[in-house]
């Protein structure tokens, strides 16, 4: 029975350790294990099962148990125990740490206050260089040289709370008749020489820290004429601009609340697909994630950070909601812009903005702050060095801008068509692309860039050819001024709605004399995929 219990426990421990570690390296679904750290959930578990969390789910605890086992393989060191005598010193240290954490958090230094929390230590040891690895090494060394889980019993604020709560638990640690009071579970001050190889275990904690990619950089080549071919201009990373307020991950909502809730575990940092979440280095928010646009920018449809956050410090947003959460706003500085400094016709920010919030007005970029979501794409691509000419200021409280209704959105898209656009594409309630040009080329370009999936596509004329492109591209709704007769059929076959102001028998070419050449090209083809091939062929001619 004892052996079965031991094996089951070991299995759960290893499972959780692997799963939590996997979460830091982006393995799918592993963040579920990390979320087991949710404090309240753990508290309930503790009331039911005693210090079950510390024993089997806490990654830091499991690592300590492993280290214990490596260094003292022959001693049966009991798990963190609530019922054993503890010294006065231990009690004083434990409660002082907890008190200090609460006090620090109360004065707003939550990033610092969360340092001793297990997820924070574990995450930082895996992903942050010197502060994290040092912290991790301290835990491991303590566990190696002393017996038992020193960190859990002496430092961990969770441990202190759980210790208290577990006194109420239904399943109690079985101490009493079976205990011969060997005090092996009790940390000893006297150091014993360790048997195992220490470096092997230390490296286990350090392994992840090397993962941070090396920094690569760009500097603008002087505007001189190029004389020879080939070669690459030097590039350097920009300097991070001073922000009045940091830009926080989407779902962090309130800066002050976030700094209290976040333990700085680095899980969101490790999982950010845009590679823009980086730990803060300032003291009050040390280790907490902030957006740093040197390596990437916040992807508009991504909610990964909220998904993985074990503390719910970053709220898990609905994907449809995400584009309407504004993190901050972009600020453009004329003196730094390369349009001023070397008269270049740069349009990097205008091209990159995913919500088209930046327009060229009289030759300079102008930010529409009502639309700007603060994603930092403009800051990321700005070529000005050392400081980017456009940067994002964070909001103290993230704003959820009410998404406009679909009817209003379509009305706006129609207005854009009247204004001369050939194709307007909206996704998640936001216009994401406006293309100009003649014929099918703009639509085909969007299709080639795979930007039609799940979108509302508005275009002046939809014939069978355009319908095929929208159908294969995976549009959700097609809005048109004029629709050809066969278009609706093709779209309906794929479950796509068509809203057209008028329907005509056949679509004419530009001279309004003959049928549209693209319509002719797809006349005899029925399958949308094959129709696109036919369109390409016809366009080449």
């Amino acid at each position, binding site marked *: 029975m004892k052996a079965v219990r031991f094996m089951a426990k070991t299995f759960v421990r290893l499972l959780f350790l692997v799963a939590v570690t996997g979460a830091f390296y982006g393995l799918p679904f592993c963040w579920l294990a990390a979320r087991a750290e949710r404090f309240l959930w753990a508290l309930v578990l503790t009331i039911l099962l005693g210090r079950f969390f510390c024993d089997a789910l806490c990654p830091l605890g499991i690592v300590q148990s492993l280290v214990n086992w490596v260094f003292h393989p022959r001693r049966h060191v009991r798990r963190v125990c609530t019922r054993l005598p503890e010294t006065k010193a231990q009690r004083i240290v434990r409660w002082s740490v907890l008190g200090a954490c609460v006090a620090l958090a109360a004065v707003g230094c939550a990033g610092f206050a969360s340092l001793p929390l297990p997820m924070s230590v574990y995450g930082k040891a895996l992903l942050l260089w010197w502060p994290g690895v040092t912290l991790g090494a301290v835990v491991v060394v303590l566990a190696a040289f002393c017996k038992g889980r020193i960190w859990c019993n002496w430092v961990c604020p969770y441990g202190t709370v759980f210790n208290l709560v577990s006194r109420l638990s239904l399943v109690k640690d079985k101490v009493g008749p079976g205990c011969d009071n060997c005090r092996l579970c009790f940390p000893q001050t006297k150091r014993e020489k360790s048997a195992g190889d220490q470096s092997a275990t230390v490296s286990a904690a350090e392994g992840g820290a090397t993962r941070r990619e090396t920094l*690569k*950089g*760009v*500097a*603008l*080549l*002087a*505007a001189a*004429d*190029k*004389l*020879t*071919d*080939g*070669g*690459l*201009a*030097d*590039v*350097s*990373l920009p300097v991070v601009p001073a922000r009045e307020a940091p830009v926080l991950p989407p779902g962090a909502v309130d800066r002050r609340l976030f700094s209290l809730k976040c333990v700085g575990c680095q899980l969101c940092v490790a999982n950010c*697909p*845009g590679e823009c979440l980086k730990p803060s280095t300032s003291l009050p928010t040390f280790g907490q994630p902030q957006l740093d646009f040197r*390596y*990437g920018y916040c*992807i*508009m*449809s*991504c909610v*990964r950070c909220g998904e993985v956050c074990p503390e719910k410090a970053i709220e898990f947003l609905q*994907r449809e909601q995400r584009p309407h959460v504004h993190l901050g706003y972009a600020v453009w500085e004329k003196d730094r812009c*390369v349009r001023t400094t070397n008269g*270049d*016709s*740069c*349009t*990097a920010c205008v*091209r*990159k903005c*995913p919500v088209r919030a930046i327009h060229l007005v009289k030759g300079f970029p102008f930010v529409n702050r009502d639309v700007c979501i603060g994603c930092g*794409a403009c800051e*990321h*691509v700005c*070529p000005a060095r050392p400081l980017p000419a456009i940067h994002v200021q964070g909001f103290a409280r993230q704003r959820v801008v009410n998404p406009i209704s679909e009817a209003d959105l379509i009305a706006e898209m129609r207005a854009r068509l009247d204004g001369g656009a050939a194709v307007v594409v909206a996704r998640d309630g936001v216009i994401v*692309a406006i293309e100009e040009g003649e014929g099918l080329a703009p639509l085909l*370009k*969007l299709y*080639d*860039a*795979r*930007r039609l*999936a799940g979108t509302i596509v508005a275009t002046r004329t939809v014939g069978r050819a355009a319908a095929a492109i929208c159908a*294969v591209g995976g549009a959700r709704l097609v809005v048109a001024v004029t629709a050809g007769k066969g278009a609706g059929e093709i779209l309906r076959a794929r479950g796509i709605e068509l809203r057209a102001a008028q329907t005509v028998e056949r679509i004419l070419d530009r001279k309004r004399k003959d049928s549209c050449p693209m319509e002719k090209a797809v006349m005899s083809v029925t399958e949308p*995929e094959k129709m*696109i*091939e036919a369109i*390409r*062929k016809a366009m*080449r*001619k």
Partner: protein
Amino acid sequence: MTTRFTVDGRKVSLLGYGAMRLPTVDGGHANNWLLDASKRSIDQEHLNRQVRRLLDCGVNYFDTSPAYCRGESETCLGIALKACGRPRGDYVIATKLSNFAPTQWTLAACKEMFAKSLRALQTDYVDNYLLHSIGNGGFSTFSKRYLENGAADWCLELREKRLIRNLGFSYHGDKKAFDWCIEHHDKYKWDFCQIQMNYVDWRHAKQVNARNVDAKWLYETLTAHKIPVVIMEPLLGGRLARYNWAIANELAPLDPEASLAKWALRFCGTFENVMTVLSGMTFDEHIEENVATFSPLKPCSSAELAALERAAEAYLSCNAIPCNSCNYCMPCPYGLDIPTILTFRNAHLAGDGPRDARKILREYAKAVPEELRRADHCTGCGRCNPHCPQQIDIPKEIATIDAAIDVLKAEVAR
């Protein structure tokens, strides 16, 4: 080795060596920027061996330019030709007046460029001298580069003084420049002309880009004026040599053992008015294979030409961006690695088939390892466009590629 024409009384091999893609110490060619810039110097030792081997095989036409390989091509080729110890009469050197930058549009700058070429190539004269890529940037640029400053007339003087033996021009871009040269053939007596020719550009250049001119028309016009033709881009920067199912499907039934490169080179060699076919043979294997193709050249039969025509159509259906990695656009002032991005797009983003977003992004990170050199940092300044001999609208293509990458990123984030 098949020979057809003579330059200054010397027979010229039908296969020529293009010194634009010289081997580098990292094992790639000088246009392959996979590694750190510091490691990308030309492998002189390797080049010396290659040049010796080429001369041994009878390849004696060497084409270079002051602009190639960051300006090192002429120097390295000069050293290699000197090192092989052959008399100057054994080989033919072609170099160009590559005065692309407006600061080089004065006659003095052109003269300086020619003098520099002679010094770099360690020779007293140049066999074939070319006005480089006329038509790039439009007729006005051509006029400013060669006509208004008197550079073209000065080249005639050079030929009289026998500092250059033959005068010709290489053509990309605006057709007006080509027409002008042909109209003034009586005055300039062009000894040869270098054009882009291969089985895709033969009849479909317009489909690749509406601003291009079919090679067939160029070749026939030149033949009518009895101007020998030097061929560049017979393999489209290697694009026609790389495995392509659509092409192989058409060609393999006729000759299952022949490589795609052999087919493309044989096509070019088939035409009688071709003086030499230039190939940028970076690797020793390229040299051996191409030498075998031309020793002697077996012209294509009419059935084979028909198959090549079908292959060209099949190739066009692949919808590739016509970038030949010639690197004329480089260096991009904002540090982008343009040819690598375009080549990556052709390899991984073209076509309509399903695709694995994670895999493509991994390939992207491998192709362009430095984030700051990727497509999203394009500013749209358009400085690259006038340099592109294929008339690609580079900022536009890069924007489309970046949009596609953004979609992939969003897919991964889901």
